[in-house]
């Protein structure tokens, strides 16, 4: 069973990396969160019902874990953006060469933890109904939040572009 589990995670680790990247600032926190999500998925794997979509189920656990994770350095709740933080965005890691992605990722990471989760799911093309079912908020609330998030992201990315 463990072998199958590791194979599944290995094939779908993109999900875990994306969530970790969004919810943490440092490599140490990122590794901690990755490990945490991995443990939570492992603990819940026997509950998984094949009628659910694996990626949706993994996203739910990953986001739930990220939201309730206690960072060693700090809790990232109410991590609202401000100009000082935006200035540091210019120092992007060279290794990615995906500036657009990095800028988008950095902009999303300035949202609060719940809005981050909603944005991530929306970008991953989950329907409003899916997001509503995962988060426990109404579909109309999802819509309202996504509109608000779009405006926030536009402002943040506009500042990033100088």
């Amino acid at each position, binding site marked *: 069973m463990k072998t199958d589990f590791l194979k599944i995670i290995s094939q779908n680790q993109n999900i875990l990396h994306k969530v970790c990247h969004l919810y943490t600032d440092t490599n140490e926190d990122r590794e901690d969160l990755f490990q945490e999500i991995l*443990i939570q998925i492992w603990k819940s794997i026997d509950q998984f019902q094949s009628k659910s979509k694996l990626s949706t189920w993994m996203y739910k656990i990953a986001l739930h874990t990220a939201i309730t994770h206690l960072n060693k350095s700090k*809790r990232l709740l109410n991590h609202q953006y401000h100009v000082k933080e935006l200035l540091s965005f210019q120092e992007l890691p060279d290794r990615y060469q995906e500036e657009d992605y990095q800028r988008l990722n950095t902009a999303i990471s300035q949202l609060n*933890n719940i809005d981050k989760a909603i944005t991530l799911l929306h970008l991953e093309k989950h329907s409003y109904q899916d997001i509503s079912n995962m988060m*426990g908020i109404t579909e109309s609330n999802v819509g309202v939040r996504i509109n608000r998030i779009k405006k926030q992201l536009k402002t943040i990315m506009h500042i990033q572009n100088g």
Partner: protein
Amino acid sequence: MDELQEIWNSHQVADEQRLDEAQLNSLLIAKSENVLAKINRILRLDVLIMLMVSSFFIAMTFVLDLANRNSVITIISVMMAYLAIQYYGKRQLSSKHDFNKDNILDILKNKLKSLKLSKRLNIIGIPILFLGFYLYLQSILSGAIDNITFIQVGIGILISLVSFFFTNWLFERLFGNQIRVIEEIMKELDH
């Protein structure tokens, strides 16, 4: 937003970040830093305290009033009832959530509800136990329950008040931070 979706989905995890199965396996051994896992860990300590309090009362009854079989049975019955109520509270608190059905808000709501139930059971149950046990002790020392004076009742109430505040403080120390974190997340969800 379509453009953003395109940027987002074009990204793939860099090869140096990808972990192979052996590396993933090595990560499976660790202590969880999740707030809910932390609650479950603290719960073990809470159960230990509960068992110590119960054992103390039962042991004292045996030591002080072994000759009176009725009172020993009464005290043990009361303690068993207390433990059953506490067990219900702890079971609610440690119950596992099902990620197939439960959404994130429901999981947090249930945990918060269980924490608050457990707090109520503790801060009401323990002072009543202390008051009952004190009056019971006094009745043994005075010979009968009728011989207990107002001052002794007053001291009993004082003891239960102290135990109320102590239990409240202890609960706050054990679960206060976790409750605040969950409440903060729920506030963000409601926002």
